């Protein structure tokens, strides 16, 4: 359980941190620092167990179907990394609380740092590879947030984006690799994977797995050619660089290499890929670092180079090399974090990090200068410092007798050269900043020593560098347990013999070291005296070898491709979109038949059509085709359209669907009214199109669509038929208390659906109202033009008045009998609406306005409320929403009248339908009123 606390504590603290205001700097800093200290304490309490070789575990099932447990595992390797994360975390937090200016949102900064700390601890402690990938991605995300902490600076945003893109893509590759690994092994558990190295290496998928996982590791650890994101990430605040980009996150990649060494290592593919990548990164990083003028840029390339060194060591596939790699991880984290902090101090105090503008700071910052020189000595590998020890081990490892021919002499040479370069840039760092370089310009502001909180972490780190350098035995147990875990992954195994000592006698590695120190000094002298480093814009030779440029070019290409696609598909023409839509629909309809299915027709003679049907069919067909011919004359089209609708409702009646026939008929009336009304405000004719080819193309599409749907209908109609109608027919009287199964389905079985639909109807009416509202706009009617000089024929006027009470009665009739006979709320509501609208047509708007304001908006609301409350009412009887009940009480005079709760629901439907319909038409009718008023004014 302590293990879970260890991993999850930062996340819990981050939750609290998120609630803190940014002004609470002190409490935010204390909370973050306290959390890091607590993690460190927990970790130290586990030290005895871990050093004795135990592997601590804790887990709980999370997504068992995926083989994903929330589980943590602490062994020597994880302990080493967790120590780096928590200890350097404490120091960075202390440093950051003095580094941030009072204006900056401190709580947010600490929140991100805590998130990162939690994610990083998760990576090293996860005992399941999938979980590891999850935390891995979390580190990428939190590092994105941290790099872009100064959001207002474009460079910070660009750097953050680049880092996220590269490490994120690497993370995807890693995920794919891990999935393959899980496929090979059959489990994602780290214990199982680490124990089945032989099985993995023998598997045919070994190479792709290895490549994918290496892609993830290399991109995270800034290996060539993915290294360029790291220098760009230097736009982050310095504490972030010190923490993420030297000590922890960039080490995640090499951590994973060390972690999976028992599973993936020990093969020639591993040796060649990992060691050559490491070697290239080591040399390129060290070389480019020398020519960087930005302090943090120099340190970033130096970090790249040291990461390359570690990768190279891991790639050499030798147990001792792995020990050296782990030792160097520890040492590098100490001196590099210290150096970043020192660079931050310089930046903080002088306002610049450009070495061309820094000079003689040793005078003003004596303490910082001393500390920096000591750390640089460690970085350069000067004896008596920790960097010297691991570098000696590295140099010794390059002298393997078993290496292939060109490497046998090439590797030691390259290693010595890289060591010399690292000496050169270390010398440059110290000389350019703290001593007198006559070529430097003065710094923008006169520095003085920073507060103790910024110096203390550096001092502590330098102290560790020196102590380890003098007494390497003190890290002996730590290194041994980490190496044991990395080499054997929890399996029994014997560590190779090695000795942590300053003096190994006069041997070849020592000679190489001395050569590197001298050579590095001379190199710097040459560049400084002969060429003048300050005049170089970029590193000679390698300045053009730039992964960043290629990356940006590819990114730009991708962006222009996306823009091209977008422009091609979305040119702003709705006509085009509709065409795409129709084509896609056609394609989607045809796809199954093109792929495998086939339409089966049974060419049986079918039922012979009656004369009535044939006649109706012919008229309908002709009317439909006539609309195509006449659609430019809109009024004529409307008449034809009405005829088609009318014939459709006749067809419904003919095919035993009276409810449908009634609804279709009444909707047809309302629709025609509505379209006539709108036509008043629209051109009466369609202009012919300019592009003739469109007509032909659309006709082809239309014919295809028509043929397709006809074929589909024919195929369906000739198939044997089995329906679920029986269920509804059997249960309509028993459960719904009605004999009209259609109505029972609408108000009872599928009442939820109906509730949604009347809500849509009501919303549509309100949208129409809003669209035609004129407040704040010039009168719509004036813009639309058109004349309003209709006369209202007397006969119609009188007939309509007489019809009104009759229609009301008919609506009531339809509503009341709907449950057992054709009718129901929809039909009744439409009939009622038609009766009211007829008055507008027959009497005119003013006549209606004098008698009623025609505002049926409340009807929509009341109708929906009633329908909804009917549903809620069933809760009172502990039944689900919209359960209906019924009874047939005996009423005086009327006899048995069905009374169901669905009746109330149906009344709600009626009110909404009537309200919505009248509101819609009334909104359009009012347009002419506004025009008149405009005219009157």
């Amino acid at each position, binding site marked *: 359980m302590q293990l879970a606390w260890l991993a999850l504590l930062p996340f819990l603290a981050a939750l609290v941190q998120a609630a803190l205001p940014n002004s609470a700097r002190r409490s935010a800093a204390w909370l973050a620092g306290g959390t890091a200290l607590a993690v460190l304490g927990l970790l130290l309490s586990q030290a005895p167990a871990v050093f004795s070789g135990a592997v601590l575990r804790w887990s709980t099932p999370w997504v068992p179907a995926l083989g994903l447990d929330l589980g943590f595992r602490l062994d020597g390797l994880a302990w080493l990394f967790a120590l780096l994360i928590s200890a350097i975390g404490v120091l960075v937090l202390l440093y950051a609380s003095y580094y941030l200016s009072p204006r900056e949102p401190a709580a947010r900064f600490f929140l991100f740092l805590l998130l990162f700390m939690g994610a990083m601890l998760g990576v090293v402690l996860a005992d399941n590879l999938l979980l590891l990938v999850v935390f891995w991605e979390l580190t990428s995300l939190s590092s994105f947030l941290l790099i872009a902490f100064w959001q207002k600076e474009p460079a910070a945003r660009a750097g953050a984006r680049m880092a996220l893109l590269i490490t994120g893509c690497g993370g995807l590759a890693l995920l794919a690799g891990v999935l393959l690994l899980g496929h090979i092994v059959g489990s994602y558990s780290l214990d199982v994977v680490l124990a089945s190295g032989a099985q993995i290496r023998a598997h045919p998928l070994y190479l792709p797995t290895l490549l994918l996982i290496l892609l993830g590791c290399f991109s995270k650890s800034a290996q060539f050619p993915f290294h360029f994101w790291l220098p760009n990430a230097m736009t982050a605040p310095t504490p972030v660089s010190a923490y993420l980009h030297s000590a922890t996150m960039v080490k995640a990649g090499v951590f994973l290499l060390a972690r999976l060494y028992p599973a993936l290592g020990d093969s020639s593919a591993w040796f060649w890929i990992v060691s050559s990548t490491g070697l290239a990164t080591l040399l390129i990083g060290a070389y480019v670092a020398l020519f960087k003028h930005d302090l943090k840029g120099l340190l970033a390339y130096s970090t790249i180079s040291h990461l390359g060194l570690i990768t190279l060591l891991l790639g050499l596939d030798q147990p001792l090399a792995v020990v050296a790699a782990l030792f160097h991880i520890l040492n590098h984290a100490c001196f590099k974090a210290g150096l970043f902090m020192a660079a931050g101090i310089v930046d903080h105090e002088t306002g610049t990090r450009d070495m061309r503008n820094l000079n003689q700071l040793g005078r003003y910052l004596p303490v910082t200068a001393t500390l920096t020189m000591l750390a640089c000595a460690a970085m350069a590998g000067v004896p008596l410092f920790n960097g010297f020890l691991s570098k000696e081990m590295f140099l010794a490892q390059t002298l393997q007798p078993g290496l292939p021919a060109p490497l046998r002499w090439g590797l030691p040479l390259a290693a010595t050269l890289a060591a010399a370069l690292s000496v050169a840039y270390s010398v440059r760092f110290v000389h350019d900043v703290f001593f007198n370089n006559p070529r430097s310009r003065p710094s923008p502001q006169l520095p003085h020593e920073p507060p103790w909180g910024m110096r203390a972490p550096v001092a502590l780190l330098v102290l560790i560098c020196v102590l380890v350098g003098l007494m390497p035995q003190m890290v002996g147990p730590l290194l041994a347990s980490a190496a044991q875990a990395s080499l054997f992954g929890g399996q029994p195994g014997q560590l190779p013999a090695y000795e942590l000592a300053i003096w190994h006698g006069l041997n070849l590695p020592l000679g190489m070291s001395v050569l590197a120190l001298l050579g590095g000094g001379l190199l710097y002298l040459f560049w400084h005296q002969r060429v003048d480093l300050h005049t170089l814009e970029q590193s000679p030779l390698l300045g053009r070898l730039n992964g960043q440029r290629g990356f940006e070019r590819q990114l730009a290409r991708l962006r222009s491709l996306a823009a091209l696609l977008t422009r091609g598909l979305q040119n702003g023409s*709705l006509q085009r979109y509709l*065409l795409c839509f*129709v084509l896609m629909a056609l394609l989607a309809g045809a796809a199954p038949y093109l792929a495998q299915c086939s339409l089966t027709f049974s060419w049986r003679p*079918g039922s012979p*059509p009656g004369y009535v*049907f044939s006649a109706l*069919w012919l008229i309908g067909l002709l009317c*439909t085709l006539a*609309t195509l011919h006449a*659609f430019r004359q809109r009024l004529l089209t409307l008449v034809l359209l009405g005829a*088609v609708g009318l014939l459709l409702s006749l067809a419904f009646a003919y095919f*035993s*669907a009276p409810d*449908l026939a009634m*609804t279709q008929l009444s*909707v047809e009336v309302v629709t025609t009214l*509505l*379209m006539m009304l*709108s036509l008043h*405000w*629209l051109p009466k004719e*369609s*202009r012919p*199109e300019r592009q003739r080819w*469109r007509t032909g193309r*659309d*006709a082809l*599409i*239309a*014919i295809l*669509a028509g043929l*397709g*749907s*006809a*074929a589909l*209908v024919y195929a*369906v*109609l*000739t198939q044997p038929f089995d329906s679920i*109608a029986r269920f509804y*027919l059997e249960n*309509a*009287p028993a459960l719904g208390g009605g*004999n009209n199964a*259609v109505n*029972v*389905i609408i108000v009872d079985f599928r009442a939820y659906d109906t509730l949604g639909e009347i809500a849509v*109807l009501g919303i*549509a*009416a309100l949208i*129409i109202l809003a*669209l035609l509202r004129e407040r704040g706009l010039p009168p*719509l009617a004036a*813009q*639309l033009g058109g004349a309003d000089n209709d006369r209202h024929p007397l006969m119609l006027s009188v007939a309509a008045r007489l019809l009104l009470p009759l229609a009301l009665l008919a609506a009531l009739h339809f509503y009341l009998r709907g449950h057992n*006979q*054709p009718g129901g709320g929809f039909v009744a509501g*439409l009939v009622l609406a038609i009766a009211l609208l007829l008055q507008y047509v027959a009497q005119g708007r003013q006549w209606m306005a004098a008698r009623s304001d025609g505002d049926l908006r409340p009807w929509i609301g009341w109708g929906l409320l009633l329908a909804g409350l009917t549903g809620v009412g069933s809760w009172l009887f502990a039944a689900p929403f919209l359960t209906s009940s019924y009874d047939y009480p005996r009423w005086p005079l009327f006899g048995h009248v069905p009374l169901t709760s669905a009746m109330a629901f149906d009344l709600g439907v009626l009110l909404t339908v009537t309200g*919505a319909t009248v509101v819609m038409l009334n909104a359009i009718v009012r*347009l002419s009123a506004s025009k008149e008023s405009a005219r009157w004014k």
Partner: protein
Amino acid sequence: MEMMLALAVGTLTGSGVYLMLRARVFDLIVGLTLLSYAVNLFLFLMGRARIGAAPILDGQRAANLAEYADPLPQALVLTAIVISFAMTALMLVLALRTRAETGSDHVDGEEPR
């Protein structure tokens, strides 16, 4: 008769699609209306075209439920009819509004250049 029904749906669909692809909003709305006729008829026909089947349960023919018309597609189509009315109304008003704002009844809100 099956062939005739299929042709009816096909004609309605084809005409609807053709008019939907026209440039003027009103033509588009007419097309949509035709298309919704086609779709409603299509849905209805999924319960088969039955002539003279009983739509209302009257207790006398209850012994043979196969004699009744299929109520489910009817219920679906009934609400679909009302919803397509709402859609037509909304489109019409959008057309009005667009014309008031842009002075054009072209689908794209402006006359093609």
